């Protein structure tokens, strides 16, 4: 149904339209969407843990995680509230590097990311492996701001951005799927932006 009188005046810049998943719009800024207060975590109090179905659960301090081989991402991110930010960058460490050092149990199928402030989100284990996920503490060359999840957030850019949990504290490996915060409020368990998996049932 065409809307009377609407012709559209904010189409994505040339060459970028095909990078927008269905129902998304081009956003130059970096909007903040958070369900509650912003946690402020000092880097000397920050740590990151991997627990659950692993051979050796482990916790890294801020300095320890920085001593690992770094990894960066350049590309596009897509928020379920319909903005997409194209051509942005993050740096940190690949989740592969962290998982490889704890020995993933063969029974593990899913992860729950848990955070300072209590946020959680669920992902299939394969989606945080194979160079698809990072623990990121830098955004476009600057330390990641608290309102964007700093000191560090999970980054899983191929899924809607609520899966890229802010203020990341750790990953718990499970042998089943366990809905997280937004998933319990009706958001999709997987969240593929190219399939518009916004809400349960999409």
């Amino acid at each position, binding site marked *: *149904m*065409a*809307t*009377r*009188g*609407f*012709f*559209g*005046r*904010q*189409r994505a810049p040339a060459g970028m339209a095909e990078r927008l998943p269905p*129902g998304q*719009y081009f956003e130059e*800024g*970096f*909007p*903040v*969407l*958070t*369900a*509650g*207060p*912003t*946690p402020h975590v000092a880097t000397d109090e920050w740590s990151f843990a991997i627990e659950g179905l692993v051979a050796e659960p482990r916790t890294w301090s801020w300095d320890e995680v920085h001593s690992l081989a770094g990894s960066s991402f350049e590309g596009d991110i897509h928020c379920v*509230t*319909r903005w997409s930010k194209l051509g942005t960058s993050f740096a940190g460490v690949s989740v592969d590097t962290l998982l490889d050092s704890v020995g993933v149990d063969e029974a593990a199928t899913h992860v729950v990311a848990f955070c300072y*402030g*209590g946020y959680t989100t669920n992902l299939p284990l394969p989606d945080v492996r194979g160079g698809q996920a990072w623990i990121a503490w830098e955004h476009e060359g600057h330390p990641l*701001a608290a*309102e*964007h999840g700093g000191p560090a957030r999970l980054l899983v850019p191929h899924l809607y951005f609520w899966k890229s949990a802010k203020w990341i504290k750790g990953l718990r490996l499970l042998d089943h799927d366990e*809905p997280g915060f*937004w998933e*319990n*409020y*009706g*958001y999709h368990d997987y969240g593929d932006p190219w399939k518009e998996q916004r*809400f*349960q*049932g*999409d």
Partner: protein
Amino acid sequence: MSASAAPAQPIPWQTGKVTSIRPETPRAKSFCLRLPEWRPHLPGQYYTLRLTAPDGYQAIRSYSVASSPLDEGEIELTVDCLSDGEVSPFLHDVVEVGDELEVRGPLTEYFTWEGSSPLLLIGGGSGIVPLMSMLRHRRRALPQVPARLLYSVRSPEDVFYRDELGEETTLTYTRRTPENWSGATGRIDDELVGRLWWPDGIAYVCGPNGFVETATRLLMESGYEPARIRTERFGPS
């Protein structure tokens, strides 16, 4: 925290008809939409609105419902006109009574009030909209439930729903006050937020991101645990 069973059926798009348009401020209007497949919303929920150009290009944004779910068959969406926006200027400048608009909702079950707890509301600018749905619903369905609203606006002409703000509301003007104003002025502070204190229930905060950051900090300093604070934010960081 309730883990309500999510509906397995996708919520469909439907075509609503604009039945009335009311200016709230020089840059905000309330649009009443009659929906063929109306379903009751929880105060605080939003709808997604989709505009389609003749060539198929679509622009989609979300707007909070301002009305009470007791208004069966209709929803009211109040839209602040963003000068660099695409959808809100269209709604303001082009849409007329009788036009048809595609919407999908109501959506999300988080920034919602289910009527069981005192209403503690802090709104900045157009952040009042979802809070007004809660206030309107309380007035009609649950007047015995305590309610307090702290509402920050720049100037007198920026006040939404002016005629409906009652004694539960504390208004503060950050740039300019009405003549002979004896109430609060300036940005929200610990004294103003302290007036909202209630030993139980959830505080709902909605507004521009910087406003929400300040309000949540002040709430936590006045004794609210983070789990008792729900936020909805808009605007650039």
